[in-house]
């Protein structure tokens, strides 16, 4: 379809120019059917990268990278006791930015932590040198909406990037549980404990039909590796923060073990917007 578009456009243009050149006076009428197509830009295809970006829900600011340090409790002004997770914000600096012209998205790469230079490869050292920041342990890209949202290289981001009471999403890698059976991994109910059950107390049972379809359908829940995957927890409330001391307290729990890096961003479901709706 798209391969025909330029041809059609060319013909339309020529038809219009021919028709206009034949016009002797302004009173002369010509049928609209003589102009089969109007010269226009070919529309952006649905699957193109730019149209996907237009349809995506995006934020106007980048997030932060924290380190999960543990849990504590928090007494609020109404006398409630709330569970809270402590996230440390250390050495957060902008290391790189991407633009639509070059990479197809607007995004800000943020680095966190510190690594000794002798443990970093030379290409990465050059990457950090370009941004004039120290070698970072953990890098993450945060996609933003507009070119105005991009930050300068080397900008330091502190915990007061967020506000007390706002909602954030926290993304991290869950604890790996190793090889796990179906009861633990998919909450199957297992087999009988008694009534003559042998070797099938925790088994998955049937995995499908017989001759038709004569195979196990894709996506069948089976035993396998559990955990160690990226997980997002949406809409956690920020209870407390301190930019000087470098920490954020969020309500509730966060995936992953202590000491693991977590991404913290504004709650996408609350603050995120679509570029298509913005342009209208």
């Amino acid at each position, binding site marked *: 379809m798209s391969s025909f578009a330029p041809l059609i456009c060319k013909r339309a243009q020529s038809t219009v120019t021919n028709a206009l050149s034949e016009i002797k006076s302004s009173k002369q009428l010509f049928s609209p059917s003589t102009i089969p197509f109007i010269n226009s830009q070919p529309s952006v295809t649905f699957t193109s990268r730019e149209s996907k970006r237009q349809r995506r829900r995006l934020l106007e600011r980048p997030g932060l990278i924290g380190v999960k340090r543990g849990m504590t409790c928090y007494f609020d002004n109404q006398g409630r*006791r709330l569970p809270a997770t402590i996230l440390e914000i250390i050495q957060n600096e902008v290391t790189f930015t991407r633009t639509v012209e070059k990479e197809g998205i607007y995004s800000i790469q943020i680095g966190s932590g510190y690594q000794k230079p002798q443990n970093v490869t*030379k290409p990465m050292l050059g990457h950090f*040198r370009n941004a004039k920041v120290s070698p970072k342990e953990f890098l993450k890209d945060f996609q933003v909406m507009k070119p105005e949202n991009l930050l300068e290289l080397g900008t330091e981001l502190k915990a007061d990037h967020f506000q007390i009471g706002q909602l954030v999403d926290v993304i991290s890698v869950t604890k790996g549980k190793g090889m796990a059976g179906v009861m633990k991994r998919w909450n199957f109910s297992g087999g009988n404990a008694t009534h003559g059950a042998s070797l099938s107390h925790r088994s998955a049972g049937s995995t499908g039909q017989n001759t038709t379809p004569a195979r196990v359908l894709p996506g069948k829940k089976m035993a396998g590796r559990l955990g160690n995957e990226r997980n997002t927890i949406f809409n956690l409330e920020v209870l407390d923060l301190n930019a000087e001391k470098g920490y954020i307290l969020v309500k509730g729990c966060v995936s992953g073990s202590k000491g693991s890096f977590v991404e913290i961003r504004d709650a996408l479901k609350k603050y995120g917007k679509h570029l298509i709706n913005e342009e209208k």
Partner: protein
Amino acid sequence: MGEKMIVYEPLPKLRNGKNLMQYIQEAQYEKFDKNGNKRKSISLSNPERIRADDIVTVVYKNQKPVTGQVLMVKRSGLNSTILLRNKITGLGVEMNIPIYHPNIIRLDVIRRPIKYKPRNRHYYIRNSRLDVGEIGANGKN
């Protein structure tokens, strides 16, 4: 490879390099237990600490005090709790109370046993002949 790569210095360390969990715990104690009485009352180094088998009254700012016999003391930072058991109109009632809650003014030890039992968790006294009596039923508290 001969040219030396420029490496920038990291940002200055926060809290003079102090552990964050330790810092937050101290800050929380400073906020919720200014004079250190609550910390002292459950500290293991204090011989006068609250132990299982003591009879304790928890005095609140905005509600009636709660009295009972201590079944256990859970020490976990700001979330430390004591489990109090009492009998009210013949019925056993247990309350697990976070002692650092800002509405709690103080913890009073009313009575100590002559000899402590050789356990730190007294769950086994429930519904046995060692069970607590009706503490504070005469309108003392």
